């Protein structure tokens, strides 16, 4: 039955698009999307996720919200610490590199998150709508905590300005205004924009994953140089964090779908907001390490095995 669940998840359009593009690239087929499409689609996805979250927050009551919110904040602090500890001591990386990785695993992969939602909807498992709102919060906290960890190892004075640059940077800012617009306008008045921000979402995500497949294929070569411990941790860290997320979600009484979402929020690693943030705040950290781990290992792992596993955890816990 778990195998069936894996297949079920695997066969969605975005996941297959990712794998087919990855394999095609390895065989030297040129399936890269036009250069100008990548920023357009990522902007679109961030805004659409933000609008969805803001609209859901508008519909939620504070009574429903406060417990999951606190769990999110705790996860936002704990998950980068766990990632830091494992990469620093089990992985024997430098403080800077371990912090960089902590920023990625403390933050969230909006794409993994969305694939989970697609799977939940396909399998008719309901979840709390306001969870998308928590995504933005976790996305930011995880990065901030990780940058804080690296504070000692960097030129101190720049830390604050780096932080403010990160928060004002494109990916968090777009997510943020999406949430605000969605919250203020509300579901009814947003309806005319639904053909764009709701209707086009799955298709845009599929296109985006073609591009990510190409990039992941190019990163596969770096895996060898990253070493087997990083590969192992690229699977272990999301599993640990995902399990914690599931526990936290179950502890505050979320539905099965909600628990799975919390697991993915905790267990996924960012590869849009975090790399940009880390590049600015921790330029000495090695992108060959953190992009490879987050996009080359954890992302495909979560997409194929992780998501069904988090759903299984959620079903066991609720």
């Amino acid at each position: 039955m778990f195998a069936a669940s894996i297949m079920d998840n695997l066969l969605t359009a975005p996941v297959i698009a990712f794998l087919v593009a990855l394999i095609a690239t390895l065989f030297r087929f040129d399936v890269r999307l036009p250069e100008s499409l990548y920023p357009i689609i990522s902007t679109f996805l961030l805004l659409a996720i933000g609008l969805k979250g803001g609209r859901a927050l508008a519909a939620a009551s504070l009574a429903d919200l406060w417990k999951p919110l606190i769990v999110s904040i705790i996860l936002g602090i704990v998950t980068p610490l766990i990632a830091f500890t494992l990469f620093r001591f089990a992985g024997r990386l430098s403080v800077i590199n371990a912090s960089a990785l902590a920023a990625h695993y403390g933050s969230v992969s909006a794409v993994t998150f969305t694939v989970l939602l697609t799977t939940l909807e396909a399998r008719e498992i309901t979840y709390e709508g306001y969870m998308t709102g928590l995504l933005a919060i976790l996305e930011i906290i995880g990065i901030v905590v990780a940058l804080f960890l690296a504070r000692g190892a960097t030129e101190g004075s720049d830390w604050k300005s780096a932080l403010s640059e990160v928060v004002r940077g494109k990916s968090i800012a777009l997510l943020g205004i999406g949430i605000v617009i969605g919250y203020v306008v509300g579901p009814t008045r947003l309806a005319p924009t639904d053909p764009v921000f709701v209707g086009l979402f799955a298709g845009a995500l599929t296109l985006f994953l073609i591009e990510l497949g190409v990039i992941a294929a190019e990163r596969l070569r770096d895996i060898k140089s990253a070493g087997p411990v990083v590969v192992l941790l690229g699977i272990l860290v999301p599993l640990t964090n995902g399990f914690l997320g599931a526990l936290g979600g179950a502890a505050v009484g979320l539905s099965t779908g909600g628990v799975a979402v919390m697991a993915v929020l905790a267990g996924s690693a960012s590869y849009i907001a975090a790399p940009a943030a880390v590049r600015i705040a921790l330029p000495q950290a090695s992108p060959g390490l953190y992009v490879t781990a987050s996009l080359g290992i954890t992302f495909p792992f979560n997409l194929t095995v992780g998501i069904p596993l988090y759903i299984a955890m959620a079903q066991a816990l609720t």
Partner: protein
Amino acid sequence: MNTVPLQLVTIISESVVEQKLIADIKACGAKGYSVGHVHGEGVTGKHALDLNGPSIRLETVVTEKVAQAILDMLSAKYFNKYATIAWMTPAQVTRPDRF
């Protein structure tokens, strides 16, 4: 028309540093700049994953002195941290007061 010799400094860097780099070249004395987009390859490899697209190509026409200041600044703050490359070309302009 009389022309005056200046220096054209061209910098290729990661798009993530665009704002920072603009501030830094202004601090060195540049009065203007233009930014385009490129992708490429160098010693640090191919393509950088970034929301703003691959790389930026900034060019600024400046006096010899400012050009030197920009190269020094790049050495201190960019070359060892970001995938950055820069070169300097002699350039003739009219209206030297603009640069």
